[in-house]
């Protein structure tokens, strides 16, 4: 059995998940990264994307829309603004997210960032295959 890290996924409204995982794939703002046991202590912000967690029970994926992740040698805490397990995600919900992002992009003075968020969402949709 591979060594594990304590994985926590917290959204503003509730704690979504908390269990030991062997690896956590995080959609970081600067690119994806995978955290395993003994990872250097890092804090990274998230871009909209898929968060994949591999544990003894198999792989679980979550759709996250932003926030940050705190990685230490023994644990990974992801603080996501919105997080939904991929199995519960529907096409309609995803469309709503995209619509929200487009709306935000229209009023956001920082055009590049907002457009990037929309692009990330589209990329995630393709990846999730919904």
């Amino acid at each position, binding site marked *: 059995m591979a060594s594990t890290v304590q994985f926590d996924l917290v*959204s*503003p409204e509730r*704690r979504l998940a908390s269990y030991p995982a062997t690896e956590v794939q995080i959609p970081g*703002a600067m690119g994806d990264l995978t955290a395993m046991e003994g990872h250097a202590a*890092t*804090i990274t*912000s998230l871009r909209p994307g898929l968060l994949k967690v591999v544990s003894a029970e198999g792989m679980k994926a979550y759709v996250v829309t932003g926030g*940050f992740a705190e990685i*230490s040698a023994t644990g990974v805490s992801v603080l996501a603004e*919105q997080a939904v397990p991929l199995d519960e995600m529907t096409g309609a919900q995803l469309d709503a997210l995209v619509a929200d992002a487009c709306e935000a992009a229209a009023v956001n003075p920082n055009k590049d960032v907002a457009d990037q968020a929309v692009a990330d969402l589209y990329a995630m949709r393709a990846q999730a295959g919904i």
Partner: protein
Amino acid sequence: MPSLKDLKNRIGSVKNTRKITKAMQMVAAAKLRRAQEAAEAARPFAERMTAVMSALAAGVGTGEGAPKLLAGNGQDQVHLLVVMTSERGLCGGFNSSIVKLARLRANELVAAGKTVKILTVGKKGREQLKRDWASSFVGHVDLSEVKRVGYANAQAVAREVMAAFEAGEADVVTIFYNRFQSVISQIPTAQQVIPAKFESTGATALYDYEPSEEAILADLLPRGVATQIFTALLENGASEQGARMSAMDNATRNAGDMINRLTIQYNRSRQAAITKELIEIISGAEAL
């Protein structure tokens, strides 16, 4: 002296009132439990968020080039007070205590020559502030249609606050809410959200930051504002139900006392009437 019929009606109506207040108390108790659970569930996120942000803020400092949400825009002329109250009444001193604190602060600020602007959340506070501060109102967030306060509601408030800050219409933003301590005690609290204030935690763990510290902080600060507002809304929700519960408990007890008093008065007047009739009969018989 009210007639027997009046008294009887009166007792009946107080009994009905007692039934209603009793029911409201029980509803409030059930809602309180849910509100407390929601507040509890939101705590891990808020705590982590604050911990990470204070570590970041200590690293970046408030010097030149620091994000505006942290360092402020260099002025403190215009103060925006976000007054969060409930949408419904019948909750004891809940709304009044928040409004009192906000009014006190507003008076202080005006006396110091500052400009005060008020954003109200929840209509009860708006109604109370309307008399003295109507000219300072800049907006209102209506949550009366919202069954359960979600993060999205907090984001809406935060967006409005941040838009005002970025447009230079406000220099300092303070939120007013009741912190929940227990069913009988809620503490009216004023909390400054912009510029953000952190208690320095002292020991900060060494982290790699990706992207840079500044970029993460700039990304997190707006979320931090929303998180603080969300926490305040949840605390307020729990406080409201707690205050309503104890207010309704008192009302139920008072109604009970009133029923007892009225019943005694009713019985006395009934007996007086009987005695009076007997005396009339007896004195009538004696006169024969």
